[in-house]
């Protein structure tokens, strides 16, 4: 996993609630056996017409908006456990998703992919949407070490919570698998001490 660096970027606004992983990456694109290339089909059915042409009114096709931050309505990533949703966002260049609520499995998948799920309050989210609506190019600074989202243009600073272990993993590019493999003696001891085996 790549290390997460302090990020300076504009944001792409998608102010819909309950965006599910079937929208992020529809099931028909899950047939690949590698992790790469899912970005091309990110939000495919919102982004493209059935003939493959782009829908001009969808935000990812709007030249005013760009950046590595996706700003999305609450309960982002609900539905299927497909990690392909996090891979697709990452592959398309996103490094942060900001929402006021993330579905549990998506949150874990994002963290395991190196994509930061940055949770803010409903009021803060509304404020962020307003800022982007006012100025599509407004810059944000995501400082993971300090756990802050900073808007230099207005001086606003939003603090966000993150599990301290997951924070270290993101900063250093560590995976859970490295840690778990290092714990194999304890896992084997657990297996031997169990009173039942079914």
């Amino acid at each position, binding site marked *: 996993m790549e290390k997460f660096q302090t990020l300076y970027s504009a944001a792409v606004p998608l*102010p*819909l*609630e*309950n965006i*599910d992983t*079937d*929208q992020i990456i*529809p*099931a*028909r694109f*899950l*047939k*690949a*056996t*590698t*992790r790469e290339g899912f970005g091309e089909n990110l939000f495919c*059915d919102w982004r493209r017409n*059935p003939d493959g042409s782009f829908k001009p009114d969808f935000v990812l096709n709007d030249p005013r908006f760009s950046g590595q931050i996706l700003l999305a*309505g*609450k*309960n982002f990533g*609900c*539905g*299927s*456990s*497909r*990690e*392909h949703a*996090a891979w697709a966002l990452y592959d398309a260049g996103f490094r942060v998703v900001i929402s006021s*609520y*993330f*579905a*549990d*499995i998506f949150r*874990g*998948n994002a963290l*395991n*992919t190196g994509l930061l799920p940055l949770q803010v309050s*409903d009021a803060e989210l509304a404020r962020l949407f307003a800022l982007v609506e006012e100025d599509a190019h407004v810059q944000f600074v995501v400082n993971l070490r300090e756990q802050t989202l900073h808007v230099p243009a207005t001086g606003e600073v939003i603090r966000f919570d993150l*599990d*301290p*272990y*997951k924070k270290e993993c993101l900063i250093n590019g560590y*995976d*859970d*698998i490295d*840690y*778990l*493999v290092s*714990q*194999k003696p*304890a*896992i084997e001891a*657990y*297996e031997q001490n169990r009173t*039942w085996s*079914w």
Partner: protein
Amino acid sequence: MAKSLFDKIWEAHVVKAAPGGLDIVYIDRHLIHEVTSPQAFDELEARELPLFRPSRILATADHNVPTRNQHLPIEEPLSRSQVDTLTANCAKYGVELYGLGHQRQGIVHVIGPELGLTLPGTTIVCGDSHTSTHGAFGAVAFGIGTSQVAQVMATQCLLLSRPKRMRITVDGALRPGVTAKDLILYIIAQLGTGGATGYFVEYAGSAVRSLSMEGRMTVCNMSIEMGARGGLIAPDETTFAYVQGRPYAPKEAAWEQAVAYWQTLYSDEDTVFDAEHRFDAAAIAPMITYGTNPGMGIALNGHIPSEVPASEAESFDKSLQYMGFQRGESLLGKQIDYVFIGSCTNSRIEDLRAVAAYVQGKQKARHVEAIIVPGSKQVEQQARAEGLDKILADAGFELREPGCSACLAMNEDKIPAGAYCVATSNRNFEGRQGPGSRTLLASPLVAAITAVQGKIVDITQYLN
């Protein structure tokens, strides 16, 4: 101190506490399928790690398989490649595979219970969000992403924070025509699609206790549709009777020992839950969804809400526009094009029996295409042994071969753009059953009656 059912099982599986308040949790059963496992096998390969406990993994091909002519090679090249990759990986790493054509093949959440792999008190994971199904047996079962699939393959463990506990109690008797599916659609409509995010849910109360194991599986299956990490029900005599004698279930002395332990698996009387909800079973009517998330459900004879909070209005109206419905409208009389009976929610033998019992001697409406996809080879064979296939065929329903099918439309079973489908599956998301498809979730009984009537009706007037 009083402990919940969930905590008893969780604590029995903590290998040790890890930094940052996380636990290393041991996983008893790992189910894998062709879609979310290939990248995990690649991860092992890239890190040169062995598969730690192959005997704790079972594989099947379900998400991406055709439901006709399963004896022939899969036509679609990408689907075939994914299924072939699973076969090659299982052979290489020594994992038991019930692949296409095998007598035990089927949807991963249907075959686990029917083989007796799903047992009370165990931890079960799968790279699929509907792993919550197995909670019906009093197991801690939940869906994981592919990175976690690799972690379990490498260490048989996951690094997890303990979720909060929620209890949902439903007391009383369900009314005629109201099934386990209506019960869970009702709960999700009350709590909303994110209403249980961060929680593990225990279902309790006399209405839940009175459900069969298959009904309990339907309820636990849809826990994820309100955001819950999982759902579970305390094991009881109904559970033990279902499990006993199944191929992987403990036998003889081990069975006695197991049951003695399983009888200790319940929430202690004074357990304090982080959240509690109570519902009256008699208040539940046959349900249907009208929108594009499973929380958007109403009683069949109800109306789509006219008012929603301002913050939700944009998403709500986008959803109704997609479905071609209006605020405040009734769904009664709406013409339906497809009926899909299948998926890990409702594809078991009791579901097929309920459909057959209703359609016997009747005909589906001429304009409706009615597809029934059994959850497993065993369900299919049981249906044929009971003669259900003939009853269904006479009524114009096509009984297919097992797989996930039109629930997520990864294979060729797709609903065309703009068409309405009453489905017994679990998700009505935009495009879930194919680009532009419009899904209305309901019980197998509602689906059967809809297929015969050709439109949405108040089923209470049509019960046999």
